[in-house]
């Protein structure tokens, strides 16, 4: 019976929005419709015409068009008080993968590039005609990417491991033999010539440890009746690249909004701080950028430079009839500064006259060296685009055709043609298949491989034959700029994909997208594209969930009216008072919400209720290595922390961030089901320990991991649901969806194995997560307590170990300062056990974090938090809480890095 009810409740989620059967009267009360319509009529016209989500997420190329197109009068959906079309919350996950590169004759252990993309954001109106948007996004990538292109006879991907499999270390220097016409001859690893020409170029691949980019963008706009002006900015942070931008955009409506003119201007400044691959750096000539290279002697040079980008765009969108819209845009981009890629080199075969005794008969001997690529320090580009959008009303479809032409002073011309068909299926589905074709020419300085008739290094002697010195090659004999980056070559791209959109309930919009693309020289229009070695395929999938605040407000108004009618009919008293109830539709517990760092604290109060939440926690660790609660010297850490052999390094800083989607649904009033997928990323910097044996990685070792974490699911049961006291029991399980086999890249001919235990993405085991929570309120005072645990239900995970069990006890008190603001103070005690077992494969133990004995401990913390509940406006019913958790005392097991603190943030909305 319960299962049947639950199933029915779930099925209701996927119906067209309407009041829930539980509370729905036979007909929607006339008052609800009247009130909604009245408010719609009174809404300011300007609010119905503003930038769409494309612009708000920061695509400069889309600013003008998006802003112009979405404002055409009549294109607005019904307007509801407090929320305008375009006001929304958005969550997105995407994954991008590339197919394997063509490496003939090589068994590569490289995994191709893959990228995990995560985004959360919101857009909301305020102060009548202002609108604010905020977006956070991050991407974590790992895998192998080409560092160079070279003739196959250079054997750049040769096996570097005894098993004959190509490793992470690329070979970027060596020898080649050329014929009299400077064509490369085929040779084996030992220099034996086959008598044939080299079969052609091939990418030299290099793998890197995962990296994560994090970006935060914001935008603010003001709307007039026939114009709009916006300001935006943002910052992007990654270990080797810091970028910030500012944008001014605007729009002017003409001819009663039949035509819309848009413009935008953007400036972006970037600082490059690229740590060159310390494994390959000794074999890369960086003299071209000698002034920008730092730490050359450390064995891990760093390239530091800057770049500036400007973008100007003007656009025009115009209605041609009742069903046709055209748009055109002109964009000018200028870039100055360091425009090269610090991780790409060009292979140059130096024909040294003094070494030609090694040459084959009639040919040449080439001494091959890798030079850091060099690009011009300015780039000017013009992009012209046009789009036609044609409605085909009889079949509820629309066609979109877009053409773009790009031209720049690097010599790259590109044409892009995109076609998509948008098909509505019923009132809630939109299916959009699309095709795209791009063809581009090569940059003038694209040089996948160079030959230079000079010595790489020339020994200078005095007239008597005595050694004077060594003179490097003459740079004037090389082109001013050269790059072997295949993205600058001539190629074509053919891609196809599909997007499916489903409008769920109460303003929820689910979007799924897929795209496949093939990049190949043979696809270039008119031929002349790069060879087959540069061909590769890509796949991309993504899913996003948007909460349309206008639709949500409409549903909320309807439910409120229904509740009022029910009260009038039933003579109900305080049904909606206190903690939940249909009368408080959308109000997420008011300021009584638990501090942000407390999980599993709330069960939903009524059957059919739904909650969408997002939670993030960032823990920072800096400082000294502690033993128990003491701070030992580096010498002690070296001797004792790693066992045998000694430690050579230790963590200098660590960052751990978790993003969690919080989905809850109550099929009955006594049961709340929860699903909480997570995404995590870790980063770590390592320092050398005084007195340790020198380590090739010490002083420049930064590594990161990231990806899907464990997934939690289960149920919460309310034990006490009074007006002022609430208690619930959470019984959840954590599924080991987080990878626990994250590895270091192989370098210096050494397999370093798995990363440190705290850098893995999950626990590796099925875990039981019980939690018992009490919350109460007396007047303006709020208080609560929780005891929770993580019990590992397996002795070991897939890689041979299991994290220790954890128990946490916490209690808090707080004050509701206003009806929308609350403050809290919380104490925490955490007991975490040691890791059981160890990695089931050998690892290179360098730091205390590589040893299971150095895990767990007893921790005392103090949390200071604030909680905001939005009582009205676009965000009505949403709750936002922040908490800083400050370590008070630590008693570690073994040797561990001390903590700086944890920042927890939670956003939630209860429907």
């Amino acid at each position, binding site marked *: 019976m319960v299962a049947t009810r639950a199933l029915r409740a779930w099925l209701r989620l996927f119906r067209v929005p309407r009041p829930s059967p539980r509370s729905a009267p036979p007909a929607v009360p006339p008052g609800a419709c009247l009130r909604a319509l009245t408010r719609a009529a009174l809404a300011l016209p300007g609010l119905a015409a503003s930038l769409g989500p494309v612009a708000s997420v920061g695509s400069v190329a889309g600013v003008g068009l998006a802003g112009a197109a979405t404002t055409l009068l009549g294109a607005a959906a019904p307007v509801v008080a407090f929320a305008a079309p375009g006001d929304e919350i958005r969550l997105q996950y995407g994954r991008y993968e590339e197919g394997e590169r063509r490496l003939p004759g090589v068994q590569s252990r490289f995994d191709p590039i893959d990228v995990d993309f995560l985004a959360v954001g919101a857009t909301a109106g305020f102060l009548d005609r202002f609108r604010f948007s905020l977006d956070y996004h991050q991407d974590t990538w790992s895998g192998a990417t080409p560092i160079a292109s070279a003739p196959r006879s250079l054997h750049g991907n040769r096996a570097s491991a005894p098993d004959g499999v190509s490793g992470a270390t690329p070979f970027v220097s060596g020898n080649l033999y050329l014929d009299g016409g400077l064509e490369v001859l085929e040779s084996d690893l030992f220099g034996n010539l086959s008598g044939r020409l080299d079969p052609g170029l091939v990418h030299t691949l290099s793998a890197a440890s995962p990296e994560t980019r994090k970006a935060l963008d914001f935008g603010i706009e003001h709307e007039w009746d026939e114009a709009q002006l916006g300001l935006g900015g943002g910052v992007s942070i990654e270990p080797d690249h810091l970028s910030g931008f500012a944008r001014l955009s605007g729009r002017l409506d003409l001819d009663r909004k039949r035509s819309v003119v848009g413009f935008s201007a953007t400036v972006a400044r970037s600082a490059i701080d690229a740590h060159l691959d310390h494994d390959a750096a000794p074999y890369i000539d960086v003299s071209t950028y000698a002034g920008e290279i730092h730490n050359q002697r450390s064995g891990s040079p760093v390239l530091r430079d800057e770049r500036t980008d400007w973008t100007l765009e003007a656009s025009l969108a115009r209605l041609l009839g009742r069903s046709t819209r055209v748009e055109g845009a002109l964009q000018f981009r200028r870039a100055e500064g360091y425009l090269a890629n610090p991780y790409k080199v060009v292979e140059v075969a130096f024909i040294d006259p003094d070494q030609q005794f090694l040459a084959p008969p009639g040919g040449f001997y080439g001494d091959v060296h890798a030079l850091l690529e060099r690009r011009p320090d300015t780039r000017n580009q013009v992009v012209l685009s*046009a789009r036609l959008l044609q409605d085909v009303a009889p079949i509820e479809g629309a066609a979109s055709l877009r053409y773009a032409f790009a031209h720049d002073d690097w010599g790259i011309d590109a044409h892009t043609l995109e076609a998509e068909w948008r098909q509505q299926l019923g009132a809630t589905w939109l299916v959009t298949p699309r095709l795209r074709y791009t063809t581009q020419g090569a940059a003038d300085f694209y040089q996948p491989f160079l030959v230079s008739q000079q010595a790489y290094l020339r020994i200078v002697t005095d007239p008597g034959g005595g050694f004077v010195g060594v003179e490097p090659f003459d740079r004037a004999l090389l082109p001013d700029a050269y790059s072997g980056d295949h993205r600058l070559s001539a190629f074509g791209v053919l891609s196809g994909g599909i997007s499916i959109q489903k409008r769920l309930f109460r303003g929820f919009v689910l979007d799924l997208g897929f795209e496949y693309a093939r990049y190949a020289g043979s696809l270039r229009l008119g031929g002349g594209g790069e060879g087959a070695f540069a061909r590769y395929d890509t796949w991309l999938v993504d899913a996003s969930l948007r909460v349309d605040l206008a639709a949500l407000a409409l549903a909320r108004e309807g439910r409120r009216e229904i509740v009022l009618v029910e009260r009038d009919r039933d003579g109900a008293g305080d049904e909606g008072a206190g903690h939940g109830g249909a009368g408080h539709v959308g109000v997420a517990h008011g300021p009584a919400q638990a501090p942000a760092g407390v999980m599993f604290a709330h069960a939903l109060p009524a059957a059919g209720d739904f909650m969408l939440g997002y939670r993030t926690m960032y823990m920072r660790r800096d400082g000294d290595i502690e033993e128990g609660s003491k701070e030992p010297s580096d010498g002690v850490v070296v001797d004792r922390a790693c066992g045998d052999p000694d430690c050579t390094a230790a963590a200098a800083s660590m960052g751990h961030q978790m993003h969690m989607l919080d989905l809850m649904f109550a099929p009955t009033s006594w049961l709340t089901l929860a699903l909480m997928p997570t995404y995590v990323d870790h980063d770590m910097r390592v320092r050398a320990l005084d007195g340790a044996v020198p380590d090739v990685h010490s002083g420049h070792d930064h590594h990161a991991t990231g990806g899907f974490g464990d997934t939690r699911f289960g149920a919460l049961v309310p034990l006490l649901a009074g007006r002022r006291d609430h208690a619930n029991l959470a019984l959840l399980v954590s599924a080991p969806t987080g990878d626990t086999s994250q590895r270091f890249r192989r370098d210096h001919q050494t397999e370093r194995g798995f990363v440190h235990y705290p850098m893995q993405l999950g626990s590796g085991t099925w875990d039981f997560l019980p939690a018992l929570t009490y919350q109460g309120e007396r007047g303006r005072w709020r208080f609560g307590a929780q005891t929770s645990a993580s019990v590992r239900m397996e002795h070991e995970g897939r890689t041979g170990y299991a994290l220790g069990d954890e128990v946490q006890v916490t209690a808090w008190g707080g004050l509701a300062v206003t009806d929308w603001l609350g403050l809290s103070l919380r104490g925490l005690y955490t007991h975490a056990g040691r890791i059981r077992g160890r990695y089931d494969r050998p690892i290179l133990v360098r730091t205390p974090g590589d040893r299971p004995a150095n895990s767990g401990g007893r921790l005392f913390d103090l949390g200071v938090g604030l909680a905001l509940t939005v009582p009205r406006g676009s965000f009505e019913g949403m709750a936002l809480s922040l908490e800083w958790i400050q370590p008070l005392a630590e008693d570690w097991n073994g040797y561990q890095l001390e903590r700086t603190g944890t920042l927890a943030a939670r956003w939630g909305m209860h429907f």
Partner: protein
Amino acid sequence: MRLPGRPPLRIALIAGALALVFATACRSVEPWERGAFASPRMQDAPHAPHATFVDHVRQSREAAAAGPSSSGGGCGCY
């Protein structure tokens, strides 16, 4: 008539001329005739999050699409 410039430039000129013709069409479209533009299929970017992700990837894969790091695009070094 022979258009000036290289073939890519000619195509661009033709496209620009067509766009100009469309943009100067003079048929009046009254506000009450614009109902079609309110449908989801006629929105500027009905699948905006997907488009954002795809654009981000393309900026690191196509030279012509590699604009400035306006949305904090980073170096696209992967």
